[in-house]
């Protein structure tokens, strides 16, 4: 499903993403991906970045629902878990990794 125009994630330099990711809530629990942007308000966006959810960071979706729980996989085994209310998770965009055991996706 391709995001519509008003869902194009905002990147720091203002340009559009080359690879448009999916909202986090469209991943499957257990799926990993790479953060590529968000459509959150600036305050929340900065907070998430400061907490480690920034572009090019690998994440794993641990729980889908209210709340969504993501595991932030920083380099070198640094990892933390962040709980996000669903409205926040809907507006965080992620480039999903292929699901190993699923159909091509």
């Amino acid at each position, binding site marked *: 499903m391709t995001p519509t125009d008003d869902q194009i994630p905002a990147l720091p330099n203002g340009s559009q993403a080359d690879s448009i990711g999916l909202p986090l809530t469209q991943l499957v629990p257990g799926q990993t991906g790479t953060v590529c942007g968000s459509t959150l308000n600036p305050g929340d966006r*900065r907070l998430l970045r400061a*907490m480690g959810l920034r572009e090019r960071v690998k994440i794993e979706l641990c729980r889908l629902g209210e709340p969504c729980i993501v595991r932030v*996989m920083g380099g070198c*085994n640094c990892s933390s*878990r*962040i*709980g996000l*209310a669903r409205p926040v998770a809907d507006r965080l965009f992620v480039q999903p990794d292929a699901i190993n055991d699923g159909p091509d996706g």
Partner: protein
Amino acid sequence: MADGTHSATSQRPDRDPQSDRPSPSSARARIALLGNPNTGKTTIFNRLSGLRHRTANFPGTTQEARVGVVASSNGADASLIEVIDLPGIYSLELDQTEADICRAVLAGVIAPRGEPVAAPDAVCVVLDAGNLSRGLTLLGESLRRRLPTVVALNMIDLVRREGIVIDSDRLGAALGCPVIPCSARTGEGMDSLRSALMHAEIPVIAPPADEEGLARWAEEHSARVISTPAIHTRDTLTDRLDRAFTHPVLGLLAFATMMTALFWSIFSLAVYPMDWIEWLFALLGGGIERGLPEGMVRDLLSEGVVAGIAGVLVFLPQICLLFFLISLLEDTGYLARAAFVMDRALRPFGLPGHAFVPLLSCHACAIPGIMATRAIPDRRERLATILVAPFMTCSARLPVYVLVTSLLFPGRPLAASLAFVGAYALGIAAGVLSALIARRTILKGPARPMILELPTYKWPSVRTALLTTYDRALVFLKKAGTNILAICVILWWLGAYPRVSPPAEAADLRAQAALIASAEPGRAADLESQASRLEKSHAGAHSFMGRIGRAVQPVFAPLGYDWQLTVGVIASFAAREVFVSTMAVVVAGEEDAESEGVMARIAGAKRDDGTTPVFTRATSWSLLVYYVLAMQCLPTLAVTAREAGGVKWALLQLGWMSLVAYGLAFVVYQGLRIAGVA
């Protein structure tokens, strides 16, 4: 220093900047502790300062900091270090109060009350060894401030357990400041940390100024020093616990169980120390009464001051238990998950999930509940919670509920229990609806959807919990305690003065008793106690309290209260539980509300016309509703003023709750009268 760097010991405020010899004055080196939340910063603070610390506000805010004193472990260097525990933040550049305060402290613009305003002599940045790159970003922001810096690489034991090795020396060389691996939980590395802090220097390294560059810098540095990059293993236990605790059904059940246990222990366990305190102070009061000559001083001491101090200390067991248990729960990591569970229930009313534990605690006593609202990050949400917290039925209202429901439903315990439950429900409903109104009007603001880090599950530290409890107890005693004591003394004085001569009937009874004393001692004793009761209720009626009651009675007439009930309502304005004992004195002339027959006498009390009972059905319902909703606790108002940051919030709370209580009690009374209920 010869190489041009500046050490912490040469940076103290009152010193000649050219000289690098420490000043002979008692100026201490001041260290600021900076770090992400959940990095064990507070545990490091506790390790360094132990009991030698105090809690202080930043002027102009309700943000607190703990300020402690550390004795250097190095015997040769006996100077003291002062440590300020700053609020945990993810970034210095965020637009939130905690980050504002950290920035201001590092810039030397602000300091906790009682401390000289100056930049800290050194910064100790606390990093979680298991989250190095994120912590390095904050370190980088701090390094830009060009303050002497030491890095505490905390929780090193947990990382080591997973087989990861961090080359702290290499990291220190790259950063230009010492990196001390440590574990505040076990105590490892604390000595090295202390001595490193004494000799902190300004690092020569300047990290990138922009956000992106800084993030890359942090990643590169952490990658270079973590020499055993392990494969990311799925932590299935944490996953399963998270799923259980945030599950719509299971999570709610787990939460309900935890809260019931919390609530039950505050309600029931605290009763023992509360009883001991009351017993101890009754002894003390009795001792004073016997030891001092009769007069105003003796009465002031035994009935005013001693009772007043008891009135303060009696809150302590509940406060201590509450904060102890919450600290344990929080340390386990559970509360963060529970906050999400409760967020769903409270969101519609403009309250966050974090508000649940404080609001629940208010059912034991509003004072510790309001103090617990510190956990709520958003200021408006926190204020809304503080404002409505006293609507929750606290234990002080229970004696009134018991009195009124036993008058309304004599011999029908089921109906009485239902009325009880209804009272609790009314309080909760009034609270959340008031919060909704506040959030739509004076505290309007966006409902911030929750974003919360979920810390790793771990066994809680009893030591940390005890120190937190000690902190909170001290804060309560110092601030609320002094107010409560003053209130109790004033209350006592209003009820004891002016002294009036006993009524004629009492004198007659005593004369009669004296006549028959030798012949019928039993009957004489009865007459004496009758006289005594008459004297007491007469004194109560003519005290200032009694006179105020009579004067104010017209205000409460539409609610169905006569002057005796008004005295009870006014007196319990300062503390609700006083209602029953005040009624006992005014109506029945008894000081001990639990002595036999008092309840019956109160129930049968008549108004001035001699026939209408004081407690008619309509009046009783109106009284119940009034007590559910009214703000009748001056100590709580004092705590509100302090926690909300201003007397105006306490006044608002008082005004709103009085309005709601009076309005609904009026509707209930008049409605019942119109419906023909007596």
